[in-house]
C-alpha cells in the first residue's frame, strides 16, 4: 500500500470524529479561553497547595505550640511544660492562645468536665457541644462575679488561684483562655484565665 491508499482509507473513518473536527474547525478554540483555563488551573493548584499547607499547619502546629518555651512562663503541675503563660501588668496573660465559652457540667478534684459552647478567637480541634476536661493550672484572678454582672474588673491581685465549684457552679457558662494539652489522651484544656465576660 502507499500513502495515497492511506488518505483514501481516511475517508472511511468514524463520522463522529470527522464531525467533531469539522465542528472544531468552525468554532476554533479561543486562545483567550485557553489561557484563562491555564491560568485558572495554575491558580487552583496554588490555592490547593495553600489550603494544604494551612491544613497541615492546623494539624501539626498545635501539637508543638504548647511545648515552645515562652519567657516568664509558669509550668503547669499536671502537664509537662505545657501550660505556659506570661503575666503582664494588668494580670491578663500575654498570649491568649485560645478562648472558649464552656458550660461547666461537673467538678472533680479541681478539674471540670465541660461542654464547649463556642470557640471565640482561635481555630481549634474541638467542636461545639464536645465534652472536654478543663483544669485550671494557674488562674489569674480576673474574675467578676456573676451577681454584679459588671465589666471585667481590674485584677485584685497578681496571685493565682484555682477556681472551684463554689465559684462556678455546675451549669454556669464561663469563658476560659488557655491551651489544649497535646499530651493528654482525651481533649483536655489547660486554662490560665476564666471570666464570665469576654
Amino acid at each position, binding site marked *: *500500500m*502507499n*500513502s*495515497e*491508499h*492511506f*488518505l*483514501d*482509507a*481516511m*475517508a*472511511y*473513518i*468514524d*463520522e463522529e*470524529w*470527522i*464531525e*467533531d*473536527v*469539522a465542528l*472544531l*474547525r*468552525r468554532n*476554533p*478554540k*479561543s*486562545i483567550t*479561553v*485557553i489561557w484563562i483555563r491555564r491560568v485558572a488551573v495554575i491558580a487552583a493548584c496554588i490555592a490547593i497547595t495553600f489550603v494544604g499547607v494551612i491544613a497541615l499547619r492546623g494539624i501539626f502546629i498545635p501539637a508543638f505550640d504548647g511545648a515552645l518555651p515562652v519567657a516568664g512562663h509558669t509550668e503547669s503541675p499536671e502537664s509537662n511544660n505545657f501550660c505556659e503563660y506570661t503575666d503582664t501588668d494588668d494580670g491578663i496573660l500575654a498570649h491568649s492562645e485560645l478562648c472558649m465559652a464552656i458550660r461547666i457540667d461537673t467538678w472533680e478534684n479541681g478539674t471540670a468536665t465541660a461542654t464547649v459552647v463556642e470557640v471565640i478567637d482561635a481555630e481549634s480541634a474541638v467542636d461545639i457541644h464536645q465534652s472536654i476536661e478543663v483544669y485550671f493550672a494557674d488562674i489569674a484572678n480576673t474574675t467578676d462575679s456573676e451577681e454584679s454582672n459588671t465589666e471585667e474588673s481590674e485584677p485584685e491581685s497578681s496571685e493565682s488561684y484555682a477556681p472551684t465549684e463554689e465559684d462556678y457552679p455546675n451549669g454556669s457558662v464561663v469563658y476560659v483562655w488557655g491551651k489544649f494539652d497535646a499530651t493528654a489522651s482525651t481533649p483536655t484544656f489547660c486554662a490560665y484565665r476564666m471570666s464570665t465576660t469576654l
Partner: protein
Amino acid sequence: MCDEDIVKLYQLRDETALSVTQEVYGSYLYKIAYNILSDRQDSDESVNDTYLAAWNSIPPHLPAVLSTYLGKLARRISIDRFRRKHRQKRIGSEYATSITELEGILSSPQSPEELAEVKLLAEYINRFLQTLPKETRRVFIGRYYFLDPVKDIAAYCGISEGKTKTVLHRTREKLKSFLQKEGFSL
C-alpha cells in the same frame, strides 16, 4: 436552515437545495477542496461537482450529518481531480505535502491487491484512532482527513505549531508500528 430541512429540499427535488447548500456549506467545502488542489478554479469546480454529486445521491442516500457527507464528497472529488491532473507531477498542495509526509511510513509501490485493502486499512485506522487521546486524534484527522495546514490545525486546536508538528510526527510513528503489528506490509 438546519440539515434536516436541506435534506428535505433534496428529497423534494427542489433546486433551492443547491443554493442553500452553497450558502451554508460553500466555504467549508471550498476549504476542503483548496487544501487538496491549491488552485482556486479547480477548487470551485470541485465544489460545484460536490453539489451535483449531492443532488444525484440524495435521495436515495439520506445523510444523518449533512456537513460530514458533503465534506466526504468534496474530499473524494477533489482527490480524484488532483490525481487526474497531477498524475505525473505533484504540486505543492497540502494533499501533496501529506502524501510526502506519509511516504516515510508507507513507501511500497502501489499494486491492485493493496488497492483492495483500502477499506480494510480504514478499519485498522479506526481502531488506531480509538487508541489516541482526543486532542491527538483531532490533530491527526485535521491533517489527514481535512488536509489542513499545520498552522490552521494549531489555531483551531489551540496549541502551538511546534506541538502540532510533534504530535503528528509521534502519531505517524505510532501508526507505523500499529499497522506493522497488524500485519500490513509498509
